[in-house]
């Protein structure tokens, strides 16, 4: 894992942000899209960390606005499951964050990504090495 890499796992319908939108974040930001945040599995989060991301942001639609009804609620549960696994292996669970984003609100997604990056910096400042 790299302290300077952030992975955003995002529902395709929640947001269409591009790398350019998150260019202000002083880190390598990888955006991976899914047909629905409910399709994001625990293993997708873990693999993002394996692929050198220091933190992962899972972004889904605001509660009640997922067009698959429960997609982002499922994503939230998978984030919780991934966090428990990180705790088990001695990593800060805060490395994985969930954000409920208003549809097509790129600003909200970028803000959530910035918060995730700040959380990652805090974790690193505590001396937790991830690799």
């Amino acid at each position: 894992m790299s302290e300077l890499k952030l992975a955003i796992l995002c529902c395709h319908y929640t947001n269409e942000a591009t790398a350019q939108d998150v260019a202000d974040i002083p880190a390598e930001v990888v955006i991976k899209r899914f047909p629905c945040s409910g399709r994001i599995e625990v293993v997708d989060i873990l693999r993002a960390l394996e692929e050198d991301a220091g933190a992962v942001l899972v972004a889904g639609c605001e509660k009640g606005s997922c067009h698959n009804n429960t997609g982002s609620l499922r994503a939230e549960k998978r984030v919780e499951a991934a966090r428990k696994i990180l705790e088990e292996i001695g990593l800060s669970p805060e490395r994985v964050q969930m954000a409920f984003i208003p549809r097509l609100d790129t600003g909200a997604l970028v803000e959530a990504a910035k918060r995730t990056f700040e959380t990652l910096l805090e974790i690193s400042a505590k001396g937790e090495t991830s690799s």
Partner: protein
Amino acid sequence: MIIAERKPIKRILQMIEPFERIAVIGCRGCVAICSAGGDREVEILAAALRLARKRQGRPLKTVEDTFVRQCDPEYLTPLGELKEKVEAVVSLACGVGVNLAADLYPDLKIYPGVDTSFYGANPALGEWEEKCRGCGDCIIDFTGGLCPIARCAKNLLNGPCGGSQNGKCEIRPEVPCVWHQIYERLKARGELEKLTQIFPAKNWIPAGHGGPRERKRPDLQMNSQK
């Protein structure tokens, strides 16, 4: 089905500590249905183990597969080739699968990735409840289909005990007293006379207290000597 639960990852990491190449093998039987050892759990555990080992500076290579079942020899045959490619196997099958693999492949280092818990039902998503103890001497025809061996904390055959309060168990108050339920069920079915039978002390030999149990059907045994 057989209900199992993944062991703590730290415990599994201890088991595989000496190895650099392992296989994580799931089972598409009961443990897949109870979300402990199917395809999804295999890839999650393998990723978690790799991540943990990467952090330790000792990268781990994993092979991931899920067999149709691990409780039948024919489905375990891939282990014959696999043991040449990896140093150890973590099986997410129930204890039956791990035991059978250990019987059939004595030189294979196979470790359990789950704790096998009980025989249970799946009343709702993400919930499993014990309903049967596999005691080998079923009496639920007398008890309205409700098992006092599995569902009474004291395994009482002639309950309820004095600790049954307002239909709840004194051991864990959130658990219904099965003997209370049995009474209500039989009453509703017009079968209360079944409670007039007094059960003698239970013979626990069919439950396994006489050693490992086995069942044989000579009519199905192609290689039977009899």
